[in-house]
């Protein structure tokens, strides 16, 4: 019996790295804004001394995670994201450090939809969400043609049910 789990063969759109980077910049920006406000309040209302130290530590950690989130993580994530569909299964694989393989039978897919937020729209990308009986899966970024084609293919494959349902 084969033991290695073969990687699915399709990748996300390359632009997803930019999308994730922008997302992280916004998210971390908000985080730093909150920290800034806290620093100001600390300065203005003379909170206890240890609050200041705590804020400094939090800032240090935030800077490190921000660098990781913005410059490294999107690329790594892109490098490890794979998906594949065939008549029977949807296969997903993602995660660089904590990797995860998911295997979902097509007959269990209940609905499939494309989604687009403002950042995805800027790069003409679509996210594809696939709902099953128990969970929902998201393929984060595909080009318009790929996304629509994949959506229709999954919808066609998902048209089967199993006995007893």
């Amino acid at each position, binding site marked *: *019996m*084969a*033991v*290695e*789990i073969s990687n699915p063969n399709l990748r996300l759109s390359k632009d997803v790295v930019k999308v994730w980077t922008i997302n992280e910049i916004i998210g971390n920006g908000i985080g730093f804004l909150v920290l800034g406000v806290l620093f100001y309040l600390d300065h203005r209302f003379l909170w206890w001394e240890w609050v200041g130290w705590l804020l400094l530590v939090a800032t240090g950690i935030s800077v490190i995670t921000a660098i990781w989130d913005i410059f490294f993580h999107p690329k790594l994530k892109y490098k490890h994201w794979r998906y594949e569909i065939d008549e*029977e*299964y949807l296969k997903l694989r993602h995660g660089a*450090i*904590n*990797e*995860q*393989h*998911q*295997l*979902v*039978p097509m*007959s*269990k897919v209940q609905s499939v939809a494309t989604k687009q937020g403002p950042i995805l729209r800027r790069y003409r990308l679509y996210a594809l969400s696939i709902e*099953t*009986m*128990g*969970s929902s899966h998201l393929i984060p970024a595909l080009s318009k043609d790929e996304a629509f084609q994949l959506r229709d293919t999954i919808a066609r494959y998902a*048209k*089967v*049910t*199993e*006995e*007893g349902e």
Partner: protein
Amino acid sequence: MGYHRYSLWIIAFDSWKLGKSAIFFLVYFFLIKRGSDSFLFVYGRPAVLLLLGLSVIRIVLKWFTHKYRLDEDAFHLKEGIFTKSKRTIPFNKIENINEHTSFFHRLTGTTSIIFETGMKGDEAAVEFNILSRAKANELKERVGTKKETEESVVTVETKEEAEREVHFRAEKKDLLKASFTSLSFLFLLPLIASFYSKLDDIFEVEEDAEGLVSQLLQSGWLIATIVVLVILISIAFGISRTFLKYGGFEIASDSDRIYIQKGVLDATKFSISKHRVQAIEIHQTMLKRLLGLAEVKLTSVGEARSDEQKLESNSLYPFLPVHRAYDMIEEILPSYQITRKMDRLPRISLLIRLLKPSFIWIIGTGVLWYFKPNVLPIPWWILSVVLLLIVSVIRYLDYKHTKYTLNASFVQFKTGGLSTSLFLTKRSKVIEISVKRNFVQKWFGLASVDLVNRSKPIHHSAIEDVPHELAGSFYHWYQGRGKEVEFIKR
């Protein structure tokens, strides 16, 4: 065929329920606080009466407006006083049948029946709160036979003539064992305590009681007698409680359904179609392991009304002798096979388990360090070490108990530290899987697998730190499920 009204008894039944919940307010507003002229009670009294009146009117209107109809293959329900609604529930969506005969039903020669489906929400089940026994049997027949004709097209096994076979009947010996294992004799204590505090509220007996107790404590003989008496009463109470609850317990099956019934005063009958069983679990708490008992649970999709009910209705007898449990599963569900011999985890996963940071220990130590309790004449850090030891022992037990096997179309996991649980399901009943590896696991060549079964909500079962090769073969095993399921094109 026209629509039927529900039985007239439903008015009596609903009024009984209303009475039970209203009695508290009536007593409170009209007896206990009858002298009070606070505006809450002055206006409250007519309000209570008004609400009561409205509820009674609602009950009567409900009987007039709620109707049902059965045709060849579905229930049709009409309901609503102002907003009308019509529902159609096809028989083939019904996952299991739950018949409950409470004391009230028993008095009136009726019963209640719930047909549970796999849908979510309030309207997922077809409920008949009260109906005659004959009618209940007729309904069960209608739903059951319909399913059989549909199934016979798809199932491969040949069907013998349905003859109900009894697999287990709780005898006196079993019930005695059960009453000790469930520690039900301890239930008397909270009962006495709550009774006492209620008594105290009304009559303020505390002071008298204190005097009485201090008098009693002076005589050694009296204390001994009282202790013995209390113990005897608790045991008798525990045993009778178990007998009432599990007396008449019976597990039976025919070629395509499983029937479980139990209870003496409050009788429950539960039945589920065999091919709707999604998975089997065998639970053993520590005490049950020592006594060689086990609880078998069937995972099914149908929703029970409450968690407690679900726990109880899906469970075969909770105190089965363990060997009998294994045999019985194979008797009842011949399409399931239990593999007795399972694989152990590799040594290395014990190491991972022990090294994983334990939040209980970290938080516990933090708390101990901060408060430095002085209750015992030992320094706080010893308590922290003891805590770490307990955590480690539980983790070691978990490692020791965790076993797994993949056998043709079955997967079988056993997990758990103090109480263990064996999980068995078929490839075709698993709706999704995932394999995860974090960086430590990658380092040591291990992985965790997670599989999802249909239930409500969905049922996750996971096994941590298995060898990476097993995770791989698990993934491939699941890819082969197409061979076992029959597809129907929509």
